[in-house]
């Protein structure tokens, strides 16, 4: 804690206190619930609760009537309200859905600043609309038109007061606090509204119950006792909220689409007509100094069928690359009906500065990219693959082949131990479909593995592949038993792997499942 406060510090703060800007705050109550319900298509009239780390984070009005409260455990909440629909918190979707609110406000006023999902603020556009009340009415009208029903607005000096004014307002209404009236309005609020749980408990124990009591303390005392954080909250309590409001830049809309009327059936004319759109997308991005490294191509048909796929580029998409991708997608994933619309949606956009060509020649990989694009044109995009390793137990699970230009994440982490996997060296040949095999004992009886992992009788002959001859076994090791996904009836597998060498020097990896032997790989 910083205990030394200079006079100039405090004097400087006083100077900056002069004027807090008039702020219009829009508050959408229970936003996590609204966002989750919108995503899942649930009605807000149902009792819903969003949980975060096993505790109620937000709940709908219906659930609140039943007695569900924030911070409750799942069991308690369900006990109060048995028909409660439990939703998991999804911050990404909260931010995504709040975008609708922001863009609705941005239609009438620039400089909207999101505080958190469910709360945003803007400078009151009072002069243009002839007064604060009128401005709020216009905002309300636009929000309702955008399909947002439950919101409240507050106008005050500074965000803090405006937010609490909004909490007072009736739905779709605005609570206005006159200029320099913030201190008086805040004074009656309980101290609990300060968002610093530690400070709140301490102040309560000191006998300070309302923001007014807190505001009445001397600036210097607060500063020396509670540090900068405390001093900042003290300023808020006094209605001196001049935190700078950083307004956001509306996101650029880079999506391009081309419609066909009448709808087109064959691939060539679609690709030909898309050429201009692709050019336009690349030009539009370049105008903003951007390039696209990942693009989603959506194909929409007359009947409403939509084919969608994400394409990645190791450098960035030029118009001709986009045309190639459209062509491949239409060939690989043909539309069942005539196509009426094609959309190009840039998924990840990066600054051109990071991707520009060097002064002396360009990146080494460029000619590789070009050569591979040519091959993909010849064979189809699914035939040219990029290899990678991943986690898994069988040699086949441990490798991953992805189409070159498509980015698919590794499903299993290769860093984990994967008990039951065969130790190195790895087999040099891994059969894409295991070969059916036969393993026999000395007296030509089939070798079996009991559920306890016992091998009876010992293997002496093996035949790899269908109808191939029996080879005498030189040595063998195993079983490496694996009881995978035993909790899932449909996917459960109980297998055991063996390494076998034959007298001719070849080594094999065999697997037995339900008394049927397969050869998975060959060591050579």
């Amino acid at each position, binding site marked *: 804690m910083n205990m030394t406060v200079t006079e100039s510090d405090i004097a400087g703060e006083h100077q900056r206190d002069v004027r807090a800007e008039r702020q219009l705050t829009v508050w959408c109550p229970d936003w996590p619930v609204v966002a989750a319900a919108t995503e899942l298509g649930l009605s807000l009239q149902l009792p819903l609760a969003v949980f975060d780390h096993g505790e109620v984070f937000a709940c709908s009005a219906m659930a609140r009537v039943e007695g569900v409260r924030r911070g409750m455990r799942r069991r308690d909440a369900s006990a109060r309200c048995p028909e409660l629909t439990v939703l998991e918190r999804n911050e990404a979707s909260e931010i995504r859905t709040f975008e609708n609110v922001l863009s609705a406000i941005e239609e009438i006023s620039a400089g909207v600043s999101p505080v958190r999902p469910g709360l945003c603020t803007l400078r009151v556009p009072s002069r243009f609309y002839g007064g604060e009340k009128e401005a709020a009415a216009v905002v309300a009208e636009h929000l309702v038109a955008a399909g947002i029903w439950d919101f409240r607005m507050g106008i005050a000096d500074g965000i803090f007061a405006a937010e609490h004014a909004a909490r007072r307002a009736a739905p779709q209404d605005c609570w206005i606090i006159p200029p320099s009236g913030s201190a008086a309005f805040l004074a009656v609020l309980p101290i609990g509204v300060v968002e610093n749980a530690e400070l709140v408990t301490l102040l309560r124990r000191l006998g300070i119950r309302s923001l007014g009591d807190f505001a009445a303390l001397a600036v210097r005392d607060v500063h020396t006792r509670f540090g900068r954080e405390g001093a900042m909250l003290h300023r808020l309590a006094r209605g001196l909220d001049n935190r700078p409001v950083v307004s956001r830049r509306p996101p650029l809309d880079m999506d391009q689409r081309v419609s066909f009327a009448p709808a087109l059936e064959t691939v060539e004319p679609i690709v030909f007509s898309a050429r201009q759109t692709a050019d336009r997308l690349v030009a539009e991005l370049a105008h903003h100094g951007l390039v696209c490294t990942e693009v989603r191509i959506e194909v929409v048909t007359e009947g409403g069928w939509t084919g969608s796929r994400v394409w990645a580029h190791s450098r960035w998409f030029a118009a001709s690359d986009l045309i190639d991708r459209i062509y491949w997608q239409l060939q690989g994933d043909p539309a069942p009906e005539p196509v009426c619309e094609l959309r190009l949606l840039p998924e990840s956009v990066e600054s051109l500065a990071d991707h520009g060509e060097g002064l002396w020649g360009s990146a080494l990989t460029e000619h*590789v990219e070009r050569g*591979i694009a*040519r091959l993909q044109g010849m064979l189809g995009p699914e*035939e040219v*693959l990029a290899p990678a*390793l991943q986690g898994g137990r069988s040699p086949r699970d441990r*490798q991953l082949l992805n189409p070159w230009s498509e980015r698919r994440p590794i499903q299993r982490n290769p860093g984990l131990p994967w008990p039951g996997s065969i130790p190195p060296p790895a087999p040099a040949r891994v059969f894409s479909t295991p070969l059916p095999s036969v393993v026999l004992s000395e007296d030509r009886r089939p070798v079996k593995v009991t559920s306890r992992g016992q*091998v009876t009788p010992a293997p002496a002959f093996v035949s790899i592949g269908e109808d191939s001859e029996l080879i005498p076994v030189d040595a063998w*090791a195993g079983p490496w038993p694996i009881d995978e996904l035993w909790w899932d009836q449909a996917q459960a597998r109980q297998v055991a792997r063996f390494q076998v060498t034959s007298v001719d020097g070849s080594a094999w990896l065999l697997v037995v499942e339900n008394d049927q032997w397969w050869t998975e790989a060959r*060591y050579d």
Partner: protein
Amino acid sequence: MAMVAGTSQAGEWIAIVGAPDLGLEAAAGFGIDLERTVVVPHPGELWLSVTAGLLDVATLVIVKPPVPVSAQQAERLKSRLRIKDAALVCWGEWPRADATLTIIESSWLGLGQGYGRLTARRVIVSVRQGGPVRRIPLWLPGVDQQIVERDDTVVPLPVARVG
């Protein structure tokens, strides 16, 4: 694969054509950098043009032709190799190759009757390159997953040029 690893570690691109059952983990184990590897598992009838196309991209192409290679096809690829300064390793028969490596004897160590695991392999590779056939005994791989000549001196394999 062991032959290719040296090239890959030197930062060159590798391409593998027509070998859908090649073990990628083993490839990585031998030192091939999968980040700089292109795989075309099923080129079908186009294997010759795919290989030629990949020679533009990669310095070393491993190819397993689905059909016997004619002398004429081999000659066409060879002229291309000369221009591109690349190498081709063929898994199978190749007419008039510069060098041919064959494993003539191989035995795995580490397995018993129901215990142990595969750890190392002793091989004898016969190399035919112009002159008389040489026989080189090797650990492929050794117990420490390295490839070692069997009199226990570490000799990195020279990159063979076939084609």
